[in-house]
Structure formats: structure tokens, C-alpha cells
């Protein structure tokens, strides 16, 4: 069986396992929607009261948030359990991925789905549609194509960063807190246009923990705001490249980490 076919088979089983708890599904969706609504409303109040945030209007800020959320929704649907890698290692359940005749990576990725990503996707799509019509956008085919690429890139950026940080636990046994740190930086970029922050922070989220490529940079291209970064306009097109590089680096890190693995004997 090819890796892809195996992955989809595993995902189907994971969805079936999840669907046993329907009430859980409903409350979870409501919880996530409430979180998103309060967040957007708060930022919305700020932007409306001060007419704009550093030159970003209300709907542009909504656009930024929802662009991030859409990439994030795919991450949370399919890769959320990456953050829980340490549990697999500590409890010894990671062993089962190694003794089966298939790639441990595919077996690990296909282990679980997190249905709550559905709520993020619903909210993201609604928010983007509203922003699209309120900003009176008329995208051509290139922009639509880039939009799709930016979302996939966003998913890959968040997934690879999470997985790389999770791999720390092969050495230290713990990584979730380090991942929370990444999430916090990510959240700041998601809530506000990152050009409001100081120089050091902007360099970090562009070059070191490149979460600004999940929404800020592609939005510059999609909303025709390239002049905001002057001679660095080309960064606006770089999301797919950044994602591609991160996938490469992550596969090396994963291989090194696997070589390092010794079972906890669980």
C-alpha cells in the first residue's frame, strides 16, 4: 500500500473513532466558535474605536485573522496530536509505530484527527467571505491560486514548527511547554498585524519562527499592501518557499530524532 493510501485509511479509522462521542463534538464546536467570536469582537472594538490599527482597517484585520485561522484549521484537524508527541514517548506507545511494516512517520500522523478544526474552518471561511465583500475585493485567477497556496503553506508552517519542537522530547522527554511558547508568539501574530510590534519581534517571526508567513506576508500581496514593507516586497510571495524549506528541515530533524529514540519500555 502506498504511503498516501495508508495515511487516508488511518485517517478514516481515526474519524470513526472520534464520531462515537457526538455530544462531545457539539460542545467542542460551540466552545471553539465562542472563543473565536470573542477574540474577533475584542480586536474589532479596538480597531473601530481608533478607526484603524496602524493603517489596517477593521475588515483587513478580520482578513488577517481568518487567513491565519484557515491554515490553522487544517493543522488542528490533521496534525494537532503532533504537540502530544511527548505522551507517546513517555507512555511508550511510540513503540507500536516502529514495529509495524510501514513508515513510522505516516503511522504517527494518521493516528488521530482533531475534529475541532472544523469549527475553526467554518469561522475562517465565514470571516474571509465577509471581509472579501466588505473590502470590495475582486481577485484574478493568480490571486485565488496564491490564496490557496498561502493556506496550504500556513498549515505546513505551523505543522512543521510544531513537529520540530515536539522532537525536542526525543532528547529531553518534554516539549509541550516549548510548543506553548511557539503558540503564544503565533497568537500575537494572529491577533494583530505584526508590523505594530518592535523590530526584534518582527525579525523573529520572519526569520526564526516564521509564523508571519501564515497570514501577514501573504495578506500584503492579497490586499495590495506591498508598499508597507518597501524593498522587502518579495517577502509577500515567499510563504510557499518558506513552507517548502521547513518541510525539508523537519524531515532531517525527524530522522535524527528517530535515531536517538530509545523506548521507555511502556
Amino acid at each position, binding site marked *: 500500500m502506498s504511503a498516501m493510501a495508508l495515511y487516508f485509511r488511518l485517517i478514516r479509522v481515526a474519524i470513526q473513532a472520534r464520531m462515537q462521542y457526538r455530544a*462531545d463534538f457539539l*460542545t*467542542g464546536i*460551540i*466552545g*471553539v466558535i*465562542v*472563543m473565536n467570536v*470573542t*477574540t474577533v*469582537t*475584542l480586536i474589532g*472594538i*479596538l480597531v473601530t*474605536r*481608533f*478607526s*484603524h*490599527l*496602524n493603517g489596517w482597517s477593521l475588515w483587513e484585520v478580520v482578513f488577517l485573522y481568518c487567513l491565519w485561522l484557515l491554515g490553522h484549521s487544517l493543522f488542528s484537524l490533521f496534525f494537532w496530536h503532533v504537540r502530544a508527541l511527548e505522551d507517546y514517548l513517555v507512555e511508550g506507545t511510540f513503540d507500536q509505530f516502529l514495529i509495524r511494516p510501514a513508515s513510522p512517520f505516516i503511522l504517527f500522523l494518521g493516528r488521530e484527527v482533531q475534529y475541532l478544526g472544523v469549527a475553526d474552518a467554518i469561522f475562517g471561511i465565514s470571516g474571509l467571505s465577509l471581509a472579501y465583500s466588505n473590502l470590495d475585493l475582486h481577485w484574478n485567477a493568480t490571486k485565488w491560486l496564491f490564496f490557496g497556496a498561502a493556506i496550504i503553506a500556513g498549515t505546513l508552517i505551523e505543522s512543521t514548527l510544531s513537529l520540530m519542537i515536539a522532537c525536542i522530547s526525543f532528547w529531553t522527554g*518534554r516539549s509541550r*511547554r*516549548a510548543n*506553548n*511558547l511557539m503558540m*503564544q*508568539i503565533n497568537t*500575537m501574530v494572529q*491577533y*494583530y498585524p505584526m508590523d*505594530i*510590534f*518592535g523590530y526584534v*519581534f518582527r525579525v523573529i517571526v520572519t526569520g526564526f519562527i516564521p509564523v508571519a508567513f501564515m497570514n501577514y506576508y501573504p495578506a500584503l500581496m492579497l490586499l495590495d499592501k506591498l508598499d508597507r514593507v518597501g524593498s522587502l516586497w518579495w517577502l509577500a510571495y515567499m510563504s510557499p518557499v518558506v513552507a517548502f524549506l521547513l518541510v525539508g528541515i523537519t524531515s532531517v530533524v525527524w530522522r535524527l530524532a528517530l535515531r536517538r529514540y530509545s523506548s521507555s519500555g511502556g
Partner: protein
Amino acid sequence: MKIFWSFTRQAFQFASVYRFNFFVEIFLTFLRMYGIYWVWRILYTQKPGAFGVDMKQMVTYGVLGMALQILVWSRVQWYMASQVKSGAIDTDLMKPLDFHIHMLARSLGETIVGGSLALPGLIFSFFVLGVSLPADPGTAVAFFISLVLGFLVIFHLNFMLGSLAVLTLDIRHISWAYNSIVRFFGGQLVPLWLFPPTLAAIANILPFQSTFAIPMSIYIGKIAGADIFRALGFQLSWMVVLVLSSRLLWTWAHRRLVVQGG
């Protein structure tokens, strides 16, 4: 009283076991304060002195919001839920201390942990971000009283949420919505005087502002003079209501409690 403090100490020790977590948490609080500092700085460059508050006051409000978030951050509802789920709650009920008071002691211990997590960030903000101290000793005292009342209000709300775990077993998802609503209507990030009239009217009735907006507004001098007493009265009335309903709810939940396995 001695028993009370022993439970407080226990919760403190439990929460401070993982030193790495401790440092990460301190750094996270740093980051949140840094973030909110830039938000207000940019907005106040656009509109200096907006809404009768200057930038220094507003940055102080924002940073305090981040500090209080970690200070009042309590896991008492999680503790109750996990004890109910595992059945270990029966040992809690056998302890020589009223369960409600026991949880209060726990929560206090966690708040002391929260305080020590927030302190480095506050010191940093004082020296680097230009956060100010209360204008005079009277304000400081009023702030402290208000903070204690705010803690008691949020503790009892959390306790009631924890009591619900007896019925539903899983409060994880309810907690997400609950936390968002507490912070939203509490004015933790955006002060209530910026809210549109309808939302402001709702927020002004709800108890959540007791935990964030009231102490923070007293601190920066937005609530001053006779208004301070009115605000403290508001907090006190909510506290009384919540203490009574907590007792009632817990008595009822306790009777319905079914210990699984145990």
C-alpha cells in the same frame, strides 16, 4: 486555620514542581505584556489621550490585565473535574476540612504561584515599558481590597463550574467558552469604556468585571473618589451572591455525586 494553610502550601508545591514550566510561564507572561504594550502604544500614537486616559495609564491597564490573567488563573475547576472522573473525590470528602474551604485553600496556593509568575514580568514592565505605580497609598489600598474581592468572585465562579463536573463529567469545552466570556466581559484586554453601549450595559451587570476591570481601573485612577466605594460595593454584593449559590450548588451536587470505581 492551620489545616487551611497546609492545603494552600500543598497546592503551591504541586504547581511549582516543574521548574522548566515555571520559566516558560514567566516568559509567556513577558511576551503577553510586550504584545499589549505595542498595541496601546500604536493606538495612542494614532489618537493621543483618547477616551480621557493617557498612554501611560492605558499601557498600565494592559500590562495589569496580563498579570491578573495569570494571578487569578485557577485550576480548581480542573481539579474537581479530574477528581470526580477518577473517583478520588471520595478521599477529598473525607478530609478534615469543609470541601468548599479546602478548594479555597487550594486556589489560594495556586494564586500565590500565579503571583510569583507574574512578578518578574511586572518588574520588567515597570522599568522598561513605563508602567506606573498607583498614584497614592489610598489608591493602592483600594486596589488591594478590590483585588481580593475579585479573586473571591472568580474563585466562586470556578468552583460552581467545577461542581457542574459532577453532572457532566467533562467540562473541558464548557471551560473554553467560559474563559473567553470571563475575559471578554471582564475587560481583561479591552477596557469596558471602549465597548459599544449594548455590550457595555451587559458587562456592567455581569460579575466578571470584578476580577479584571474594577481593580485595574482603580489602579490607574479611572475609578476614583466616591466611585471606588460604589465599585467595591458591587464586588462585595456579587461575592455574597456567589458564595451563597456556590454552597447551594455544591450541597445539591454532592448529593447527586456518584463515585465511579474509586
